[in-house]
């Protein structure tokens, strides 16, 4: 075991870990923003509205993340309209392609987690809101979504951890995330065990940080629950 190479590569790996965290946080936030309206549509009494997000959800839950990343990275540039658009300077960068793929992917899973949470808000709580004259929009904003977010939190933290590990695939489109940095150094030093071990440890640290963050949020948001 070559300890020295592990120590020497630490600064570069830490930088990669930062990119990984950035990918997860940005696509996580964008993913939730996309997931909320999809989940709301999924519980609509109107069948056509319920069906609207289905294609998105089935496609991104039913295909491998790697395929999705390739489709965005290699696929978008095929369209002239995309190449001519003002967004092209972003869309041709691996970083933004990864963000787009991760966002779409996690939004599909998060929408399903949220849908389940919305459906498990007790009917009576919504009825109570109706009886005091709250409009449907107000009930969503004040009762159903706040309740659903709290119910979904534990399952959602799991989704974020899965996303953290899935983000390693960003390295396949030249991104210098944690795995990408490790692979680049390995190509130079031929020390795969040392580098992947170090990268693995850093992933554990990231997961620990994310879970700790969720625990804090949960303690704050779910303090209304009976202890024990």
């Amino acid at each position: 075991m070559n300890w020295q190479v592990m120590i020497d590569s630490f600064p570069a790996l830490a930088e990669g870990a930062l990119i990984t965290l950035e990918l997860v946080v940005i696509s996580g936030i964008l993913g939730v923003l996309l997931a909320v309206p999809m989940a709301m549509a999924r519980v609509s009494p109107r069948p056509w509205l319920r069906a609207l997000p289905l294609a998105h959800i089935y496609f991104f839950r039913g295909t491998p993340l790697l395929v999705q990343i390739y489709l965005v990275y290699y696929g978008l540039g095929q369209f002239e309209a995309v190449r001519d658009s003002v967004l092209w300077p972003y869309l041709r960068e691996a970083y933004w392609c990864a963000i787009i793929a991760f966002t779409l992917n996690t939004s599909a899973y998060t929408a399903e987690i949220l849908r389940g949470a919305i459906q498990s808000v007790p009917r009576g709580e919504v009825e109570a809101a109706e009886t005091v004259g709250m409009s449907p929009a107000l009930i969503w904003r004040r009762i159903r979504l706040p309740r659903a977010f709290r119910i979904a939190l534990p399952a959602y933290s799991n989704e974020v951890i899965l996303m953290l590990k899935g983000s390693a695939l960003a390295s396949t489109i030249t991104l210098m995330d944690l795995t990408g940095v490790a692979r680049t150094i390995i190509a130079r030093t031929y020390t795969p065990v040392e580098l992947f071990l170090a990268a693995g440890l850093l992933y554990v640290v990231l997961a620990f940080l994310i879970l700790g963050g969720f625990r804090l949020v949960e303690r704050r948001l779910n303090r209304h629950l009976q202890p024990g």
Partner: protein
Amino acid sequence: MEQAAIELRGIKKRFGELEVIKGIDLAARRGEVIALIGTSGSGKSTLLRCINLLEAPDEGEIIFDGEALDLKRGRDGTLHAANREQITRLRAGIGFVFQNFNLWPHMTVLDNVIEAPVHVLGIPRKQALAEAETLLEKVGLAEKQRTYPAFLSGGQQQRAAIARTLAMHPAVILLDEPTSALDPELVGEVLGVIRQLAEEGRTMLIVTHEMRFARDVAHRVVFLHAGRIEEEGPPSRVFGNPRSERCRAFLATHLAEPQGESN
């Protein structure tokens, strides 16, 4: 004749093949307390829920203080509010107290009480808070303001739910078996609060299994059987000398039960 606070005309409601309410007319004068009694499945809770459209009736008219509720037939054949603005406005003026309290668990007791006044009526937060504190004091929960519902007993939760209802200054209060989910020793404290409301001259419709309470507090008792009004009148007459055989049998079993026991 004085205008009724609430008037129901020809209400019918079916669940699939089962017709739960078979045409009911009922009017409550302002300040009147009406107790709805009857066996399980007689339709009394369903009738109450039809009044503010928590349940969509199949037929009938609902009139609040002279204003008819605008209804339209939905695709499933039941009647729904035709006018969103009207139903939310009218609902804000009709309190509803549930058997299972249905407080919002992610808010403190105080936040539960000020939620609708602030967000539906647009009352300034400060004023709503002051009023909520008065109401919570009235129902005996002054020191539980900052508590979350899960940390309260059933009786305390129901009293908080009543305070939440009162905060909207409802012209009419509908109570759906308000003590049926409570442990026997907690029933009294909730009935005490409701009795106080009756003494203040509030218009109330109460579905209840507490016969003694109905006899003491109600101005009129309505006995429902199989979706119809089988007997109605002042409590002294309905309890003292029921005309209907079914009502007599029902009262014989229910009056025998000790106070505080229900179902």
